[in-house]
């Protein structure tokens, strides 16, 4: 196990964590403010990935494809909110889970009707396609580094939006007391739609950037959705700070676990046994982590302030 490999995998973990955060931020905001459990958040990620691939194919430019996919996913999100989800805010979580589960079935099938069931592969533009040296002798893919940079930038922007602007103030106020905000004359309905659109755009961005790394296919949203659930459960549902910490923890644990659990186990148990147990344990690691966190802190690491 060389230090170069450790560094590379740590960066990969950070890159995965950043993607998880882009997803988790929207999901946790929507839950914190609208009290809505949205399983279809993963579908927006998928829509973002497909739209980016389609726009990139159409325009011939990957960056333009991602840039166009952002507002497009935002519009899809707003359309979903207005037509289907708006009526669910006052319903209990069971109804929300089932109705958004229905949305997932719908979106997966719609995508496979339009683009087919086979995975689509998009390529990175040549300028981002290569490697660069982070340290002498340690090359790292430029594209993954780009994801980290974009993710950090968006996180800072989001932090600024939530803590420094009037809209952000309303978002925070909506999270702590919806009724009061609406009594003070804020158009809560519009606020909800905006927040949902924002979350959708973030998910779309994550999906668009995921295209060249992971396979773009129907159902791609669900795998990451469940990992995002783990993120926000560990971080504390409704808390953006918690989503941030949870995303980095989960991203790191998953990536490093997959890379190093097997060799580490092999030093303790026999290599053939480690060959079998390593990958199994690695794929369950984040769930075990979540169970451990919940055992000690049932509300997550950074519980959002009570709203009841």
């Amino acid at each position: 196990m060389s230090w170069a490999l450790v560094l590379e995998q740590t960066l990969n973990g950070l890159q995965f964590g950043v993607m998880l955060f882009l997803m988790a931020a929207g999901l946790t905001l929507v839950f914190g403010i609208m009290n809505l459990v949205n399983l279809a958040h993963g579908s927006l990620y998928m829509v973002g990935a497909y739209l980016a691939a389609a726009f990139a194919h159409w325009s011939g430019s990957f960056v333009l494809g991602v840039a166009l996919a952002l507002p497009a996913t935002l519009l899809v999100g707003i359309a979903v909110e207005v037509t289907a989800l708006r009526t669910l805010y006052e319903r209990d979580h069971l109804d929300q889970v089932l109705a958004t589960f229905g949305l997932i079935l719908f979106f997966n099938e719609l995508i496979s009707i339009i683009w087919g069931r086979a995975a689509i592969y998009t390529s990175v533009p040549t300028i981002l396609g290569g490697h660069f040296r982070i340290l002498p002798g340690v090359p790292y893919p430029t594209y993954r580094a780009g994801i980290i940079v974009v993710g950090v930038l968006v996180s800072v922007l989001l932090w600024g939006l939530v803590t420094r602007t009037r809209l952000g103030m309303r978002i925070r106020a909506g999270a702590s007391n919806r009724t009061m905000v609406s009594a003070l004359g804020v158009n809560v309905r519009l606020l909800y739609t905006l927040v949902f659109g924002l979350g959708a755009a973030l998910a779309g961005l994550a999906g668009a950037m995921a295209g060249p790394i992971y396979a773009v296919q129907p159902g791609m949203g669900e795998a990451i959705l469940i990992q995002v659930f783990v993120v926000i459960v560990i971080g504390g549902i409704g808390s953006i700070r918690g989503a941030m910490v949870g995303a980095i923890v989960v991203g790191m644990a998953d990536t490093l676990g997959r890379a190093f659990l097997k060799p580490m186990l092999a030093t303790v148990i026999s290599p053939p046994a480690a060959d079998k147990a390593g990958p199994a344990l690695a794929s369950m690691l984040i769930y075990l982590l979540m169970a451990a966190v919940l055992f000690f802190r049932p509300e997550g690491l950074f519980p959002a302030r009570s709203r009841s």
Partner: protein
Amino acid sequence: MTADRRRAVTLAAGGVLLALVPPIAALTDQPFYLDLFRRMMIFAIAAVSLDLILGYGGMVSFGHAAYLGIGAYAVGIPAYHGITNGFLQLGLAVAASALVALVIGAISLRTSGVYFIMITLAFAQMLYYLGISLETYGGDNGMRLAARSRFVGPIDLAQPTTFYYLVLAILVLLLVAGRRLVASRFGMVIRAAKANEPRARAIGFSTARYKLTAFVIAGATAGLAGALLANQTEYLTPDFMHWTRSGEIMFMVILGGMGSLFGPVLGAVALLLLEDVLSALTAHWQIILGPILILVVLFAKRGLFGLLAGARVD
């Protein structure tokens, strides 16, 4: 008709219809229907077990398919090693899923609300990945069931009709036992904990323990359904535990009417029938099923059983 009579008539009609499926399928020479209805009843067992905790206990477990998988593997793994004793396999299925439900429940029930939904989902997902990593037993492709479970004497699962009536008998037993359970003191505490947990605790019930017991009973029952399902399909894959399967079982409960025990049976029958009809119609049947699901949730919360029997669903 009074509600009680309507309910009794609905139940009797349902029971007679289910009992008549094998002769009708034999007369019309359509063995496919025997297979379909047996599958429906197996899912009905799983849905009823979920209804026990979801409808009566208010525990929205989104990982119920995990126990289906455990039950299936409890049949498949011994069969792979040449152990085909059905009593042993079914016992193992029930014991293993009860044990797993105990662990999952003990951790998950420390939380509530949306946390509970997500945690049960995550645990099921964890078991799904565990299933994928079982290379010896087919990994993510799954494996053929080496042989169906063997029981003594005339109970022979290779006989489609015998297998059918065995499943029907288990379903009826489960409904009778479930009826008694929810009407018992235990059931009352569970329902009280759903309606108002602080109050139930204030009266002096340690609700956590009751809820965990209910959770384990539901898990064990779903494990039994999983063991039957492995015999039904003669094939088992980690997909038994896939989270969409959990969603389907949950939908069966809602579609049929939760908190009614008999509703989930109707829900299982209706959903599988709907899937059968829609998939014959188009390969993209889920694009129709999805919106139907949303409409049911939005407008028909009382479920089919509420519609047919006029039963009040709380």
